[in-house]
C-alpha cells in the first residue's frame, strides 16, 4: 500500500511543478523589475522616447515599443485572419479526404520551422522583395515583420479554426441543405457562424503568439524605436528590445530593470489574451 502512496505523492509533485513555474515566473520577473518602480518610478515608462543609453538623460518610455508591437501585430493579423479562416474553411469543408491528408501535414511543417530560420529567410529573401516592390531604401520595416509573423501565426490559427469548423454538428449542415440552401450558403450562413467562437479564440491565440515572437521580428523590422502608423517605417517591438539589449546591460542597472518591466508588460498582455481566448473556447465547448 505504501508503494501506491509514494507513487501518488511523486505524481502530485510532478503535476505541481507547472503551478510552481508559473508562480516563479511572476515572482522573478516582478523581483527584477520592482526597483524600477521606486526610482525612477513607473511613470517614467510612459515616456514617448526609448533612449536607454545617453550622456545627458536616459529615457525609458515604452510607448514607442508598445506602438511598434501593436503596429506589427495589427498588420500581421490583417494578413493572417483572411488566409487562415478561408484556408481552414477549404480544408475542413471542401477538400477531398486525400487532399486534406496532404494539406494538413504541409501546414504543420510551417509551424515547426524555427523562428530564427524564418527570420533569416525574411532577411535575405523577403526584405529585398519588399524593398524593390515599394522602392524603399531598406526592406527592414513593420510590413516585412508582419508578413513574416503571419507566416508563423497561420498554422496555429488554421488548425484551431479547422477544429472549430469540424466540431459543428452535422445535423446543422444537413438541415440547411435539406431546406434547399446551396453548399456555399450552408458554409457561410450556418457552419461558419456556428464555429465563430472557436475561430475568434483561434485568432486570439494567434495574436498571443505574434506579440510574443522575438527572433524573426528582431531580424527584419529595422529596430527603430519610433511611434509610427506607417507600415513602411522601421519599428521596434517589445520582444526585440529585450533580446537585443539584455546582453549588453550591467545586471541590476536601471536599464536592466526597465527591460524586465517590458517583460512584465509582455507577460501580462499574453496572459490576458490567453485567459480570454480559453474562456471563449470553454463557453463554446459547453454549448456543444
Amino acid at each position, binding site marked *: 500500500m505504501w508503494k501506491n502512496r509514494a507513487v501518488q505523492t511523486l505524481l502530485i509533485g510532478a*503535476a505541481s511543478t*507547472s503551478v510552481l513555474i508559473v508562480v*516563479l*515566473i511572476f515572482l522573478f*520577473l516582478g523581483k527584477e523589475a520592482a526597483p524600477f518602480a521606486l526610482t525612477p518610478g513607473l511613470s517614467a515608462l510612459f515616456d514617448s522616447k526609448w533612449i536607454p543609453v545617453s550622456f545627458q538623460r536616459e529615457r525609458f518610455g515604452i510607448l514607442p515599443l508598445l506602438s511598434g508591437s501593436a503596429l506589427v501585430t495589427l498588420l500581421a493579423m490583417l494578413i493572417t485572419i483572411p488566409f487562415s479562416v*478561408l484556408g481552414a474553411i477549404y480544408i475542413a469543408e471542401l477538400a477531398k479526404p486525400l487532399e486534406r491528408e496532404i494539406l494538413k501535414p504541409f501546414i504543420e*511543417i510551417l509551424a515547426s520551422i524555427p523562428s530564427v530560420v524564418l527570420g*533569416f529567410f525574411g532577411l535575405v529573401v523577403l526584405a529585398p522583395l519588399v524593398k524593390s516592390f515599394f522602392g524603399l531604401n531598406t526592406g527592414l520595416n513593420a510590413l516585412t515583420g508582419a508578413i513574416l509573423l503571419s507566416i508563423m501565426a497561420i498554422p496555429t490559427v488554421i488548425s484551431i479554426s479547422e477544429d472549430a469548423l469540424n466540431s459543428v454538428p452535422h445535423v446543422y449542415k444537413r438541415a440547411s441543405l435539406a431546406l434547399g440552401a446551396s453548399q456555399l450558403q450552408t458554409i457561410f450562413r450556418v457552419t461558419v457562424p456556428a464555429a465563430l467562437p472557436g475561430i475568434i479564440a483561434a485568432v486570439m491565440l494567434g495574436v498571443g503568439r505574434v506579440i510574443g*515572437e522575438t527572433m524573426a521580428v528582431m531580424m527584419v523590422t529595422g529596430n527603430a524605436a519610433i511611434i509610427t502608423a506607417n507600415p513602411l517605417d522601421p519599428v521596434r517591438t517589445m520582444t526585440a528590445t529585450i533580446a537585443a539589449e539584455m546582453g549588453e546591460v550591467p545586471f541590476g542597472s536601471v536599464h536592466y530593470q526597465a527591460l524586465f518591466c517590458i517583460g512584465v508588460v509582455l507577460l501580462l498582455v499574453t496572459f490576458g489574451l490567453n485567459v480570454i481566448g480559453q474562456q471563449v473556447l470553454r463557453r463554446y465547448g459547453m454549448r456543444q
Partner: protein
Amino acid sequence: MSGSFSENLIYGLLRAITYAIVLLVGYILFDIVIKGLPVLNWEFVSGYPHQSGASGGILPAIAGTFYLVLGTISVALPLGVGSAIYLSEYAFQGKFTTIIRMAIITLAGVPSIVYGLFGLGLFVLFFRFGASILSGSLTLACMVLPTIIVASEEALRAVPKGYREASLALGATKWETIRTNVLPYSLSGMITGSILGVGRAAGETAPILLTVAAFFLPKLPNSIFDQVMALPYHLYILATQHPDAEKVRPMQYGTALVLLLLVLGLSLGAIFIRAHYRKKYKW
C-alpha cells in the same frame, strides 16, 4: 456538387488561398535546401569555426544544441509524463486540478523571450548557475513542459477504460494497473509528443540568448556549467552581427539547413513513430 458559376469561382478562390500557403512553405524549404546544400559536407558538420564563423565548420554549435536537447529532455520528460499520469489517472474534478490546468495553459502562452528573462533571473543569477548548459536546459524544459503534458495526457486517455477495469478487477493495485496495463500502450504516444515538443526547443533562440549561448566559442564543453554555442544562435549571429554578412551567406544557409534538418527530422521521425504504433495497437 457542381454549383453555379459564382459558386465555383468562390471555391476556386478558397482553393487558391490554401495552395498559396502550401506553395509558400515549399518555397521557403526549397530556397534553404538549394542554397544550403553546396556548403553541406563532412568538414562543415565536423569542423571548428574560424574567423568568427566566416569559414570552417559548425561542430561546436551542433554539439551545443545536442547537449541542450538532451538536458531539456532529461528534465522535462519525467516531469511532463508524471504530470500527465496524475492528471489522467488520479486527478478528480476539483480546485487543485483546475489550478494545475490553468497553470499549464498559462505556461503554453508565455512568450519565449519571457522564458529567457525568467531563466536569467532564476537559474543564471539567483541559483548562480551562470550562463551554462544547465541554465539553458532548465529554461527550455520549463518552456516545453506544457507541450509534453498535453501530448502525454492525450496518449494516456487513448487507452481504453476496459484495460484498467480488467486489471483492477483481478486485484491489481492502482499503480500496478497503470504500470502494466496503461503505460506500455501509451508510451509511444508520450514519446512522440515529447519529441515534437523538444524539436521546438532545439530551434528556439530567445530563451537561450540570455541563459547559455556563446557568441563564438570554438571548443566543446567540459561540464554542464559551461557555455556553449547553439545552432539557432549561431545562425542569428552570422546573419545579423557579422561584419561581412554578404560574404558569409553560404555559411548562413548551411547553418540554416542543418538546423532545419535537425528540427524537421525530429518532427518527421516523431510523426512516423506515431503512425507506426497507431497501426500496431487498434482498439
